[in-house]
């Protein structure tokens, strides 16, 4: 159980509070910049240089490199800003849902249908 879960007690969920906002500031600022196409292209052209410019930590840099959403969240990434990062690779929220839950996309979608019964 992570420290965020200890603070807030919600399993499988990181509440984006001050501690996360502090931890993730550079990472989120980088992802926020992806609202501009020129920045998305600049990132694709030179990932390392782009990450350096925003002062990412090594752990954040690794998680970006590995497209590892759960790790990005753990290191202060905010889902709304991370969505801009995921968008560069044309991942939709169901791709992301599957990745984070360890299911296939079809299994993830089936689980959602199930929730409606």
């Amino acid at each position: 159980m992570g420290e965020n879960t200890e603070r807030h007690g919600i399993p499988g969920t990181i509440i984006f509070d001050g501690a996360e906002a502090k931890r993730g500031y550079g990472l989120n600022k980088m992802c926020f910049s992806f609202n501009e196409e020129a920045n998305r292209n600049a990132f694709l052209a030179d990932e390392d240089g782009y990450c350096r410019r925003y002062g990412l930590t090594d752990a954040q840099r690794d998680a970006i490199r590995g497209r590892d959403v759960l790790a990005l969240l753990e290191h202060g990434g905010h889902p709304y800003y991370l969505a801009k990062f995921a968008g560069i690779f044309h991942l939709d929220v169901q791709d992301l849902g599957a990745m984070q839950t360890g299911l296939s996309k079809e299994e993830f979608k089936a689980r959602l249908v199930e929730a409606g019964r």
Partner: protein
Amino acid sequence: MARIVGSIMSTHVPAIANALERHDEADPYWKPFFDGYEAVHSWLDEVQPDVAVIFHNDHGMNFFLDKMPTFAVGCAPEYRHGDEGWGIPTVDPYPGHPDLSWHLVEVLVGDEFDITTCQEMLVDHAVTNPMKLLWPGGGVPIVPVTVNTVMFPYPSAKRCFALGEAIGRAISSYDVEPDLRVVIVGSGGLSHQLEGKRAGFINKSFDLRFVESLTDDPRWVTQFSGEDLVKETGSQGVELLMWLAARAALGGSVRRVTWNYHIPISNTAAGTLVLEPAA
């Protein structure tokens, strides 16, 4: 004095924009969702609003963590749809209604709401998708009201209710255009969670209880803290705060005009609700 004709609550999931672009309204996946808007369109034809006040939350478009307001009110002449970064089609700017906006700001600050005033504001799918759903052929000028659900601490449900009430009163005291017909939009929800190991979380029974409460007992949800709401409705289910504020703007008793609920649209329990002031 301006008059509130009613409130429309609507999900704003990004995928809606893609479905509309593909004309997927009759597709089996989408039909149960889009069908819910027929009654909304009939009602809008009847009540003919002149302007929409839209409670919405920003998703990393107009606000960043450098300056994150709890409550912001748009006072811009127009609202441009920004590039959201993941490729939904952008739409033409929506005209604003600066006179009504400034009136709201004046009344709200006088009522001790600590508003952030925005003479420029980019909007995202939380504004554009409800607009497309409600007015497929056009639309009305808008006044966006942004509620922070990006970063803790969120405003409490109680505070959001109070904001909605205050905006309702403020609209009623707007006398520049005495016959102005205002519709309130609450954009977001219902239960969903995009991120983390609990991604895909949905809570049908809480959603239904909440929607019930909006008619009979609108303060019911104000008993819950921000943490409670995340737990019960998912990280993004807290967008129900927009529905709550939109309900509160109507004041006393209301009548349910139409209600549709469908799981899932994308990762979300999609809801569409229209309430109007009881005669």
